[in-house]
């Protein structure tokens, strides 16, 4: 079923928000207004938004160290995300997690994760819960190309397939694991080739085409909801910016021509979708501008919200350690 205008506009708005949120986060970090490590998702927006548009709020996902996009796509509140980056008490984790550990269990976002592939078994557990609940829920895990080198990737694919769990594996192949090109750490370039070894469909998708990601995810979700088990989606995309930054971005050693090619308007996932929406007369240029203006206003408000929020009180250091 083709999405209607409302849904398309929502998807576009989320893609713009992810782009602007992370570009703003980089600037805030460079100015030392926020703290810690930052892994921008810029350039990969179509994967998170396309995939999450095929999920319900009650479906559960796990994310990666590059997790802001997954949060926004799943419906997290940018005010609380920003407050977390600022280390404030109104952040999602009350300032205890920071960029790499944002979670919003209320919208089924079970957390970003500092360990490559670390979220995959957790998503598998959420899928087991969905299967036992038998209410049509599914789970999805986002992971990068680097995760395919981890044992947790292979173990999780096998168990999910063995138990026919309602789980969608969404590989964001951005071609580099930190600074290492995929072909320098893997023999087989096509990550979907792992799927047949574990007895599940493997689908390679243009990860910069939000509607293609949406369609592939919908098919995988439909399969999962009817009890036929997991699917491995291999979404080909590209990370526009550096792998990570602390006080300064890490040096980017990738070829300049490769960066330029992926940043071209016809490959940029946000501009591609904008051109699609305007080209099909689904939205006007004025509506696009209104969306962009709203995103920027919302982000300015999020920064204000975060800065108005107090730092956590050190006397609360031990709060949240153990549940009652």
């Amino acid at each position: 079923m083709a999405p209607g205008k409302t849904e398309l506009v929502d998807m576009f708005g989320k893609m713009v928000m992810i782009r602007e949120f992370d570009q703003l986060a980089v600037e805030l970090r460079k100015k030392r207004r926020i703290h810690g490590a930052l892994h921008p998702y810029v350039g990969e927006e179509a994967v998170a938004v396309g995939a999450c548009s095929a999920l319900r709020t009650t479906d559960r996902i796990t994310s990666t160290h590059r997790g802001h996009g997954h949060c926004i796509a799943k419906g997290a509140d940018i005010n609380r995300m920003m407050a977390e980056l600022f280390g404030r008490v109104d952040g999602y984790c009350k300032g205890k997690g920071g960029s790499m550990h944002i979670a919003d269990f209320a919208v089924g976002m079970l957390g970003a994760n500092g360990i490559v592939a670390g979220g995959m078994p957790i998503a598998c557990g959420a899928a087991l819960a969905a299967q036992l609940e038998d209410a049509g829920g599914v789970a999805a895990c986002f992971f990068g190309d680097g995760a395919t080198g981890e044992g947790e990737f292979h173990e999780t694919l096998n168990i999910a397939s063995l138990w026919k769990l309602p789980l969608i594996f969404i590989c964001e192949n951005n071609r580099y694991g930190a600074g290492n090109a995929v072909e320098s750490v893997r023999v087989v370039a096509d990550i979907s080739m792992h799927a047949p070894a574990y007895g599940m469909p493997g689908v390679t998708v243009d990860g910069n085409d939000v509607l293609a990601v949406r369609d592939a995810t919908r098919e995988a979700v439909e399969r999962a909801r009817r009890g036929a088990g997991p699917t491995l989606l291999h979404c080909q995309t590209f990370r526009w910016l550096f792998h990570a930054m602390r006080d300064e971005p890490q040096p980017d050693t990738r070829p300049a021509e490769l960066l330029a090619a992926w940043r071209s308007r016809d490959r940029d996932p946000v501009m591609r979708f904008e051109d699609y929406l305007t080209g099909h007369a689904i939205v006007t240029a004025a509506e696009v501008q209104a969306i962009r203006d709203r995103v920027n206003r919302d982000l300015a408000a999020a920064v204000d919200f975060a800065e108005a929020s107090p730092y956590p009180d050190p006397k609360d250091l031990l709060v949240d350690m153990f549940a009652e």
Partner: protein
Amino acid sequence: MREITFARALEEAMTEEMRRDQRVIALATTRAPVLENEFGTQRVRHTPISEAAFTGIGLGAAGSGFRPVVNWGMVTFSFVAMDQIVNQASKIRYMFGGQADFPVTYRCTTGGGAQTAAQHSQSPYSMFMHLAGLKVILPSTPADAKGLLKSAIRDNNPVVFFECSRLAAITGPVPEGDVTVPIGVADVKRVGSDVTVVALAYYVREALALAEVLAAEGISLEVIDPRTLVPMDAEAIRASVRRTGRLVVVDEAPATCSAASEIIALVTEDPDTFRALKSPVRRVCAAPVPVPFSPPLEQAALPDQARITAAIRRVLEDAPVAV
């Protein structure tokens, strides 16, 4: 009261808790026919030998409303799942600001004395104690095993439940029905006045046996079983030491950064308890080696009654602590 084995007590706890709460599920590499027959293979799953995956599956299912009991088999195998234990389970609640609870129990056997050699004779509970975020349980009797496993399953946090291999076949009185033992409460297994002996798991039995022998000499041992290592019932141990003035801690883990070290720190950091000490405290622990296979070597590596007795005599004979 009826007497059943430690292993049977644990099985009863599993059965009763799975009857009591539909959300309790079981994951293990070995099949559990008794549980499978009663609860079916949806709730009782045997897994591939994929410790990292099923450790994380337990955590994810716990964060999604279930109460998984994940059995690693031997603690040895937990080391294959260290990412999920160290980076995920022990930190997930706190680092997400307490948004969700993760009621998952990880069971495993532990300890030496059965000629299973270096890898399968380990007692690494202090590694888990160190992680801040896991509750750690180590019972010594069938009744405590049953009552504490029930409490662990009902607890809303990740709990690591150690089952001493040398205790599996021993029997003891276990009350019928739904009797829990609270987490974080030590048990005075024998009241005495001369020396406090804090012993863990198998060595509770050794200490109690020794207490009988030494009683004939007029030496009165108070034997305390912490039962839970996190949270540790420090006050129960301190209160005993304030009365006896002497402390020996017995465990089969090597002494470095051990539960025994922690117990001694908790006792000696407390000013009133420190002032009550009549002599330096002592640890009786395993030698700092991988547990060897050959019986005479293994016996030499692990604590025994002779070494425990020697430590008790030392604390009775040592010069007083000058305060």
